[in-house]
């Protein structure tokens, strides 16, 4: 073929030239096309002539644009149209008649038509005023709806943008839908103080439910007698790893367990509210002084011993407010009795860990707290759909996603904290509630400061408890810096990937961030930003005083685990050696620490390595009045695993030992290694105080210590028993009234001098700072980063990508700037200027991006319009919003997740892509279509659509379709597509033509199905 036989052309070229052509209102036959491209594939070649011949002679192929096939534009389709193409291609014949080099409409009226020619730009080249409005609402908000379009058309685009840039000026006082929906996501929490009346991990009597116990078992004064009733410590159960007293014979044998214990209440009148806190599996009934107070997952009063319960997993303690029954309490000794039931005999687990709490409501204002993480996720939808502050809602989401953190990691972190009394600081439920509130406060700052100063956003994020935990600054220690946060500060939050920083900068910045931790303070001591960041507290309010009952040193007896100390007849281990009256006179004398290999041992076991893996310890002690010990705490530094007993009762074992139930034989290894400098084993023993004998009678603390393998290089045990007095004013990790805040600990800060961005014009030299001033190391860097050219560039590009076009990214701009359209590069330069002029005002940058006066800007240019694919949250919010749908917010986070996006719980710190095309997958489309069908057909209670009301005043198919198009995507629907919609609503389900009529009973359902189809149109995926 000759050189000009195939003329490749690019859509972009045609677009630019095609726009210049202009054309008035497009009708079906006025579509723009390219002459001689009969098969509309973008190339004029042999196949076009062949297509014409096949169409003329076989009729088996169609031609979608007959005007294009009319090569000589004589108004007739004939063989010469094909031969003219061949002449042109191979014999230097005449070029096809215009429009040939560029797309255009047919200049001569004829009977031929052009139904489709998708490779040419169609429609009017000048956007209508309606298209401008919808474009603006698509970008500066979550899409159009009827009311907002009317509003913008009434006040004008410039005025609307001005309003959006000053959200405080927007009056939402009459926006009851928004207020109602938002308020439903929050609850008011009264400040309260909890006092534990009966702790988890208390001593109970329990009886296996192999038969019905006497009716009096739950009453005060009932005397449980052995062997029917045994003594055990909660949790009681089996199979799920949270049990201390393990019922190895329960599975397959009996369904229930009966438990009873007593507790003291000095003054009933001091009990304000009464809460039964239970971690349970599967069902239970609880009795206070003989009367049932709570029953869950089981029926009957009392339930019979062989009843099954509904299935329920012990995933965390749950609170049951039993204040209404507090009149059952008496001064002095009270009885709590519980029967716990399994769901069936073969159940894999059972758990019961009860706690009884007296709650005092403190003076002070109630706190507005988000109900949970799902409600927080709903808040993004509720604001996005209903708020008039649309730009603020979009930017709130944008910053939240930019400075992304992970709720799940926060829950895990809170869940592992302890109070100074050595009890877990909080249960799972409180950890979830506090993590959700921390995430809410963080998001709310981004929302409130969405148009504020970038430096504030960056500093807030760096010091927010959620970020400090998420990217491990709380694990960033002087001796071992953790680079996680400092790397992402450069890569993701400020500079952008590979944008003028080095690995060395990351390492130095990590050192600058050492000493950055979190803690809780009383609300009245909490500082507001920026003080919270620039003048953080040094210490938390935890205050206590320890008195040693058993300290380190002499007085211990020990036994080398070369054999079982007290085997039974079969050689299996028993707890006889842990009993008070066990004769340990044959044991060796020693002082703690005991062990070898790591230099902390006073009693060195030189023969242990490669010889035996366990050692047994006993220590006698006396206490005048065990119940008067405020907090009885066992604490031990250990390597590698321990099981601890008091007076013959196991009080706990290290994680490295809890893979096995029951007695651990002397020869067992631990399941994992544990070093002496890792977390110590701390256990509150208040629930065991009743096991202790008052002086002069003796008590015995007994410990078995195991190694992780026979050849291990070390073993350690340094145990202590403490009486810990919590001092007034102590603010504990678990205090529900206190709030999480950034804390700077100077002793963990690397005080060395530091240099960053060395050798660049932006070099930062940090002097050696000691004490509280050390916090300024990283703040100095953050302040400088906020106005570094890389940050301006990266953040402005990201904003332009969000609001204007995906044709700009940092990578494209840095590496092939010519690939970025000139309009976008100009907009970037203007945005950066606005940033520089204002020191990082996002408001100033957004004014440049959205400038309504500058009609030549990228935002109003054709390259921006309908060029972005919606992200999942945009799909969900815009679909409900455009229909004036009634959504509570419920279900929407799950739907958005299924379409591909979830906020506050993303694992990766890079946030979701601003390019909606990144979410396109067949599964994502399917989930979106099914959601949109449910929405349009009013199939769910959580999000509703009133079709009849929406189209009121309209009755014909054409009117309804045109009305919807004019709201959803004006100017974007070719006539062929419009016809599909009209046909769709004008046929029955079986496909028979049946005109739409507002008097027919199927009117509503047909409109609903039409709307479902329109929401799943390709055009609705764009904005």
């Amino acid at each position, binding site marked *: 073929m000759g050189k000009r036989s195939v003329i490749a052309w690019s*859509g*972009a070229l*045609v*677009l630019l030239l*095609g726009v210049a052509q202009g054309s008035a209102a497009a009708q079906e036959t006025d579509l723009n096309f390219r002459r001689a491209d009969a098969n509309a*594939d973008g190339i004029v070649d042999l*196949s076009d002539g062949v297509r014409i011949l096949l169409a003329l002679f076989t009729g088996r192929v*169609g031609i*979608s644009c007959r005007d294009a096939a009319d090569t000589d534009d004589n108004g007739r389709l004939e063989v010469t149209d094909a031969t003219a193409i061949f002449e042109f291609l191979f014999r230097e014949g005449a070029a096809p008649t215009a429009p040939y080099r560029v797309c255009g409409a047919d200049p001569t009226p004829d009977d031929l038509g052009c*139904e*489709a020619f*998708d*490779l040419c*730009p169609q429609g009017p080249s000048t956007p209508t005023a309606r298209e401008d409005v919808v474009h603006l609402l698509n970008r500066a908000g979550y899409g159009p709806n009827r009311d907002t379009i009317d509003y913008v058309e009434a006040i004008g685009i410039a005025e609307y943008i001005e309003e959006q840039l000053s959200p405080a000026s927007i009056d939402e006082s009459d926006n009851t839908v928004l207020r109602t929906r938002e308020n439903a996501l929050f609850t008011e929490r009264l400040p309260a103080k909890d006092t534990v009346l009966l702790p988890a991990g208390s001593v109970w009597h329990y009886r296996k439910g192999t038969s019905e116990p006497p009716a009096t078992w739950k009453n005060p004064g009932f005397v449980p007698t052995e062997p029917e009733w045994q003594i055990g410590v909660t949790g009681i159960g089996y199979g799920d790893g949270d049990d201390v007293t393990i019922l190895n014979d329960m599975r397959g044998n009996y369904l229930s367990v009966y438990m009873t214990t007593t507790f003291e209440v000095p003054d009933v009148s001091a009990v304000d509210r009464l809460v039964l806190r239970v971690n349970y599996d599967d069902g239970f009934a609880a009795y206070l002084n003989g009367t049932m107070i709570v029953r869950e997952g089981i029926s009957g009063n009392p339930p019979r011993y062989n009843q099954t319960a509904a299935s329920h997993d012990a995933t965390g303690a749950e609170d049951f407010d039993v204040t209404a029954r507090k009149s059952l309490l008496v001064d002095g000794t009270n009885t709590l009795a519980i029967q716990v039931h399994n769901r069936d005999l073969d159940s894999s687990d059972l758990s019961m860990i009860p706690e009884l709490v007296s709650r005092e409501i403190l003076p002070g204002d109630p706190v507005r707290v988000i109900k949970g993480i799902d409600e927080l996720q709903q808040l993004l939808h509720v604001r996005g759909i209903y708020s008039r502050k649309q730009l603020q809602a979009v930017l709130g989401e944008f910053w939240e996603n930019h400075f992304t953190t992970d709720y799940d990691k926060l829950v895990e972190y809170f869940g592992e904290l302890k109070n100074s009394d050595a009890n877990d600081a909080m249960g799972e439920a409180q950890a979830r509630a506090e993590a959700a509130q921390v995430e809410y406060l963080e998001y709310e700052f981004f929302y409130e400061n969405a148009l504020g100063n970038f430096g504030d956003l960056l500093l807030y994020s760096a010091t927010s408890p959620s970020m400090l935990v998420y990217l*491990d600054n709380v694990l960033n*220690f002087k001796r071992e810096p*953790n680079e996680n946060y400092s790397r992402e500060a450069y890569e993701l939050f400020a500079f952008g*990937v590979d944008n003028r920083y080095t690995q060395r900068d990351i390492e130095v910045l990590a050192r600058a961030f050492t000493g950055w931790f979190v803690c809780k303070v009383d609300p009245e001591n909490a500082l507001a930003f920026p003080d919270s960041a620039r003048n953080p507290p040094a210490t938390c309010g935890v205050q206590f005083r320890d008195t040693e009952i058993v300290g380190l040193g002499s007085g211990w007896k020990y036994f080398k685990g070369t054999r079982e100390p007290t085997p039974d007849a079969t050689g299996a281990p028993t707890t006889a050696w842990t009993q008070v009256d066990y004769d340990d006179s044959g044991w060796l004398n020693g002082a703690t620490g005991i062990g070898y290999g790591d230099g902390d041992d006073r009693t060195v076991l030189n023969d242990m390595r490669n010889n035996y893996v366990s050692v047994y310890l006993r220590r006698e002690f006396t206490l005048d009045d065990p119940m008067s010990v405020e907090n009885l705490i066992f604490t031990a530094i250990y390597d590698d695993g321990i099981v601890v007993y008091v007076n013959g009762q196991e009080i706990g074992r290290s994680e490295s030992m809890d*893979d096995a139930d029951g007695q651990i034989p002397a020869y067992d290894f631990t399941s*994992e*290694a544990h*070093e002496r400098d890792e977390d110590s084993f701390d256990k509150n023993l208040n629930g065991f105080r009743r096991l202790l004998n008052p002086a002069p009678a003796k008590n015995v603390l007994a410990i078995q210590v195991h190694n992780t*393998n026979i050849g291990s*290089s070390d073993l350690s045990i340094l145990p202590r028993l403490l009486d810990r007095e919590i001092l007034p004013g102590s603010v504990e990790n678990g205090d529900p009234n206190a709030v999480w805040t950034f804390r700077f600990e100077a002793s963990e800060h690397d005080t060395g001098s530091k240099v960053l961005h060395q050798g660049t014009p932006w070099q930062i030299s940090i002097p050696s700072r000691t004490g509280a001033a050390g916090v300024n190391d990283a703040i100095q860097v953050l302040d400088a980063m906020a106005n570094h050219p890389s940050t301006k560039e990266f953040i402005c590009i990201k904003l332009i990508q969000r609001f204007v076009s*995906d044709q700009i990214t940092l*990578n*494209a701009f840095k590496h092939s700037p010519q690939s970025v359209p000139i309009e976008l590069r100009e907009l970037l330069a203007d945005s950066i200027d606005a940033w520089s002029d204002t020191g990082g005002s996002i408001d100033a940058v957004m004014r440049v991006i959205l400038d309504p006066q500058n009609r030549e800007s990228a935002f109003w240019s*054709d390259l921006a319009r*309908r*060029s972005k*694919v919606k992200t999942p949250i945009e799909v969900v919010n815009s679909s409900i919003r455009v229909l004036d749908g009634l959504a509570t917010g419920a279900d929407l986070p799950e739907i958005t997740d*299924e379409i*591909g996006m979830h906020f506050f719980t993303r694992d*990766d710190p890079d946030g979701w892509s601003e390019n*909606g095309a990144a*979410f*396109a*997958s*067949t*599964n*994502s*489309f*399917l989930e979106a*279509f099914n959601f949109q069908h*449910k929405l349009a057909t009013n199939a769910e209670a959580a999000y509703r659509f009133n079709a009849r009301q929406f189209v009121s005043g309209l009755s014909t198919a054409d009117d309804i379709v045109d009305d919807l198009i004019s709201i959803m995507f004006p100017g*974007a629907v*070719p006539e*062929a*597509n419009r*016809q599909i919609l009209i*046909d*769709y609503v004008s046929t029955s*389900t079986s*496909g028979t033509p049946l005109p739409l009529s507002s008097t027919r009973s199927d009117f509503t359902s047909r409109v609903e*199905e039409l709307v479902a*189809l329109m929401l799943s*149109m*390709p*055009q609705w995926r*764009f904005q």
Partner: protein
Amino acid sequence: MILNRRDFFKAGCVTSAALGLNLFSPTIFKRRLIAQPGDGKKKMIFIFQRGGNDGVNTVIPRGDAQYNTSNRPTLFIPEAQSIDLGNGFAQLHPMMDPIMEIYNNSALNGVDGPGNLAILHRIGYSGQSQSHFDSQQYWENGTPGQPYNGEGMIYRKVAETIDLNENRFAAAAISGSQMVALSGPEPIPALRDPSKYTFRGSASRVRKYLGRLPSTPRGGDGRGLLGLYGGPREAGKPFRGKVYDTGLALADSMSIVQSAVQQGAYTPENGAVYPGGSFGEKLETVAMLMKRTPVQILGVNIGGWDTHTRQGQIYGNHGNLLQNVAEGYRALYRDLQSMWDELVIVTMTEFGRTSKENGSLGTDHAYACVVFVAGGGVKGGVYNCDATTWRSGDMFSERDRYVRRRTDFRAVFAEIFTQHFGDDPALLDSIIPGYSSLARQRPSDYRYLNFLA
């Protein structure tokens, strides 16, 4: 690489018993000249371990004296508790015991043999990135150094060797979002649960909703969803191909997947038991689709490998993940015996982890890592982890911190493409851009390990 961009229209008709529909089969993909169409029988399952697997505790270089308790105080696994791999050097994490069934047996005939599991150590690439985002991208796009190349290496393998107009379900990801490895101009389906991979509503509603394709590509005479997605597209605007083609690929793949679902509940064969949890469920879906559809390549993810803190020694986070993978391999091995000779199951992960344990009882991002390959044609054994190639101290051969790679991951996949699928080696430059010149520059990185020889 794109040989011909012209559209062809192919009148076709896929009958979907599941939907009770007659769908016109859209020619949604630009027809390529397939250089060398395979016979369609060879299959591959790839498993991406997201987060970076600690290769040193997965396949332990016992012969390296640096594998010790001072470098790995809480992670060190003693020799007595490790699984010996028989070469006097390498040992396997004890929780991976289930995978030994493949290592020790070439078929379910009870005969011990060289086995069908190749364990490849020290796999990586030059210019290793320690960013999750970049390095996952590189393993998936096959072009390290180009983080913004969103086209997948395995996608290109599919596009170059399988006619996607003939086989509308040649490849898929068991994932809600598409994996980069399978991303490209033509949409490869992604799905979570086959039974839910369908439109809601009655059959007649779905039939009307789907409608029909136009009689000519991008023509205006279609109906319903297919008419809209198969109809005219706005010119000069970005992402039109992506969005419209994805809509069409959804309709196509849905009819094939629903035909498979309609065959009834799936029962694994040969005593295969898939591990609990979502990973096991995904693998069971993989097996079902492998048996009931024409799919040739399936990808799945397993997350959680970023063990910076509390990695755990034998039991714990890392051990649980390894057990999940090993049980998954064993289940696929048993369940897919009928196609074992046609199958390769391969793992990917963006990097290994630091040879020295960190201060948080875990390990940080590092360089080379371990790849497992199983299949009927696989010559079992340990590669790149033996006394001849691994000198003591090699655990710190890269920057005194990491294990240095010995083989480029692209060579591993090149071997799979050419030796397993039988692809023409000349195609490699299209599938793995720059392959032949890279192989010339760094012959040792690209020498085949010959685990398929």
